[in-house]
C-alpha cells in the first residue's frame, strides 16, 4: 500500500479579495505548481472542498476547477461537509493514493464568503444546522458554539478571560504568518470588550468571514522524489460524524473529534504525546479548548490552558503547540479551504518553510477540521517527517 505524501502546497491571499472563487483557486494552484510540470502532466483526480453554492450560485466545482487547472477527462468532484469539506477532500486524495488508484491527486478548497456580506455568510452557514428545529429557532454558527462555551464555562474552571487568551495567542502567531488574514497582535481587553455576538462569545472569539483557496498535491513518495519536492508523510486519517443537532450531543466531550484523532494516531502508530504541533478547528475560541481535550493533549476540563507555555499548563498536558499558523481565528477561515490551509501550515512547519513562526524541532502534526457545529463531522490527519515507527 503506497503511503501518501504531501508534495506541494499553495494558497491564495486570505480575507476580502476582489477575485471570484475560481480565480482564487488559480492563484493557489500557481503557487503549488511553481517549478513543477503542469497539472495535466501529473494530476489524475481532483477533489474540491466547498461549503455553499449560495456565495457564487455555483456548484460543479470539481468540473470547474479541474478545467481551470487544465485538466479534462479526470474524475473530479466537489466534497461537502460545511467547514470540514477541505479535510474531507484531503482524505479522499489520501485514500486514492493508498489504494493505488492514483499516483497524484489534487485536494483543493475554495470559498468566496464575502460575496453576500456578513448577513449572507451568516445565512449560508446556518444551513449547516438542523433545519426542522435549530434553523427555525434562529440559530447561527456563533450561537451554536456559544451553547458549548456556556456549558464549558459552567463545568470547568475556565473563564471568559481564558477564552480571550486563546484568541490573543492565535493573533500573536498570525502576526508572524505572512499568509494570515489578521497578522496583528491584540490584547485580552480588546477581546473582552468587543461586541457581543452570541453570549458568552464576542466578536474577537470568532473566526472572521473571508475569501480564500488552497491546493495540496498528494502523491506517492516515489513521485514526490521524482519531482524533487520535500515530502511529508500523511501517516493517519480518521473521520467521524455525530448528531446533526447540538442538543442531542454531549456538548463538552467532543466525541467525534476524539474518534477522528485516535483513528489517525492509530494508523500512524503514534500517541497524542508524540504530536509537536496541531492545527485545530478554532472557529471559535472555545473550540481550541474542547479540541485540545478531544485530541488527548489535555486532561478533561483543562483544554482552555492551550494559550499557556507548556510548563504553565495543568499536569497531564502534552508539550504540543496549538495553531501555530494563527488558526482559523487569525490566519483566516475560508470555509471549504480551511482543512487544506491546515495541511499547508503543517507542510511548511515540517519542511522548514515556516519562517519566523517555525516551531523548533517539530516533526509531527495533528490536523483537526470540523464541519457543522463542533463534531457534526470531524476529520483528523497525522502528518509527519519522522521515520515510521
Amino acid at each position, binding site marked *: 500500500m503506497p503511503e501518501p505524501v504531501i508534495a506541494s502546497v499553495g494558497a491564495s491571499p486570505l480575507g476580502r479579495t476582489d477575485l471570484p472563487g475560481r480565480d482564487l483557486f488559480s492563484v493557489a494552484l500557481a503557487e503549488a505548481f511553481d517549478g513543477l510540470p503542469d497539472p495535466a502532466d501529473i494530476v489524475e483526480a481532483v477533489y474540491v472542498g466547498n461549503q455553499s453554492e449560495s456565495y457564487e450560485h455555483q456548484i460543479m466545482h470539481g468540473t470547474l476547477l479541474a478545467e481551470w487547472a487544465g485538466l479534462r477527462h479526470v474524475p473530479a468532484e466537489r466534497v461537502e461537509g460545511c467547514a470540514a469539506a477541505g479535510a474531507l477532500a484531503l482524505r479522499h486524495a489520501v485514500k486514492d493514493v493508498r489504494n493505488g488508484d492514483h499516483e497524484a491527486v489534487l485536494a483543493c478548497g475554495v470559498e468566496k464568503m464575502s460575496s453576500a456580506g456578513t*448577513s449572507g455568510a451568516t*445565512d449560508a452557514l446556518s444551513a449547516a444546522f438542523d433545519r426542522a*428545529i435549530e434553523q427555525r429557532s434562529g*440559530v447561527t454558527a456563533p450561537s451554536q458554539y456559544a*451553547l458549548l462555551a*456556556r*456549558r464549558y464555562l459552567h463545568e470547568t474552571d475556565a473563564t471568559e478571560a481564558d477564552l480571550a487568551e486563546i484568541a490573543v495567542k492565535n493573533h500573536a502567531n498570525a502576526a508572524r504568518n505572512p499568509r494570515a488574514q489578521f497578522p496583528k497582535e491584540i490584547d485580552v481587553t480588546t477581546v473582552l470588550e468587543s461586541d*457581543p*455576538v452570541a453570549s458568552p462569545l464576542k466578536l474577537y472569539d470568532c473566526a472572521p468571514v473571508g475569501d480564500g483557496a488552497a491546493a495540496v498535491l498528494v502523491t506517492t513518495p516515489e513521485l514526490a522524489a521524482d519531482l524533487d519536492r520535500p515530502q511529508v508523510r500523511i501517516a493517519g486519517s480518521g473521520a467521524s460524524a455525530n448528531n446533526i443537532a447540538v*442538543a442531542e450531543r454531549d456538548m463538552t466531550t467532543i466525541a467525534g473529534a476524539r474518534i477522528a484523532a485516535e483513528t489517525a494516531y492509530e494508523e500512524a502508530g503514534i500517541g497524542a504525546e508524540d504530536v509537536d504541533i496541531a492545527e485545530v478547528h478554532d472557529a471559535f475560541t472555545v473550540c481550541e479548548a474542547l479540541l485540545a481535550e478531544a485530541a488527548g493533549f489535555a486532561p478533561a476540563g483543562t483544554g482552555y490552558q492551550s494559550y499557556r507555555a507548556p510548563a504553565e499548563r495543568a499536569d497531564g498536558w502534552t508539550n504540543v503547540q496549538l495553531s501555530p499558523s494563527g488558526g482559523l481565528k487569525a490566519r483566516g477561515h475560508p470555509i471549504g479551504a480551511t482543512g487544506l490551509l491546515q495541511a499547508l501550515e503543517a507542510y511548511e512547519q515540517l519542511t522548514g518553510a515556516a519562517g519566523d513562526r517555525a516551531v523548533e524541532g517539530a516533526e509531527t502534526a495533528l490536523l483537526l477540521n470540523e464541519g457543522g457545529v463542533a463534531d457534526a463531522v470531524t476529520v483528523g490527519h497525522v502528518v509527519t517527517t519522522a521515520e515510521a515507527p
Partner: protein
Amino acid sequence: MTDGGLDATDPRTLPGFFDALADGDLLGGVCADCGQVLLPPRPACYACGSHDVDVEPQSREGRVFSYTEIHAAPPAFAADAPYTVAVVELADGGRLLGRVTADAADVAIGDPVELTVREPTAAEREVALEYETGWPVHVFEPR
C-alpha cells in the same frame, strides 16, 4: 429494518411530529432496545442503531442545560434580535433546542422552563419552505 410504509401521518416523520405538536402534544421517539429519547422522533436510534423506535408523549417541562443570547441573527430573524436560545433537558430525558421567552440576563443553567407552542409569525412564514408553512413554532417559557 421495519420502516416500510412511513407516511406523513407517522410521528417519525417531520409532518407527523409537527401535526401532533400543533395540538400541543410533544412526541418523542423512544428506542425499544436502549431507551434513548429522540427529539424529534425518527426511524432509527443514533445511540444503538436500532430501528425499533416507539413513539411516546414527552413531558413539556424541563431545565435549561445551556443558553445564549443572539445579537447577530440570520437575516430572516434580524428584527427579533437580541433573543435567547437554550438547550433544554426535558423531564423524560430528551434534549431539545428552542427560543426562550426571557432576556438572557434572567436565565441561568438549571432554570425550570416549559415548552409551549404558537403559530408562526408572518415573518417566519415568509422564510418557511412550502411544506413548513403550517408547522407550529415551539418556545420555552420560564416557570
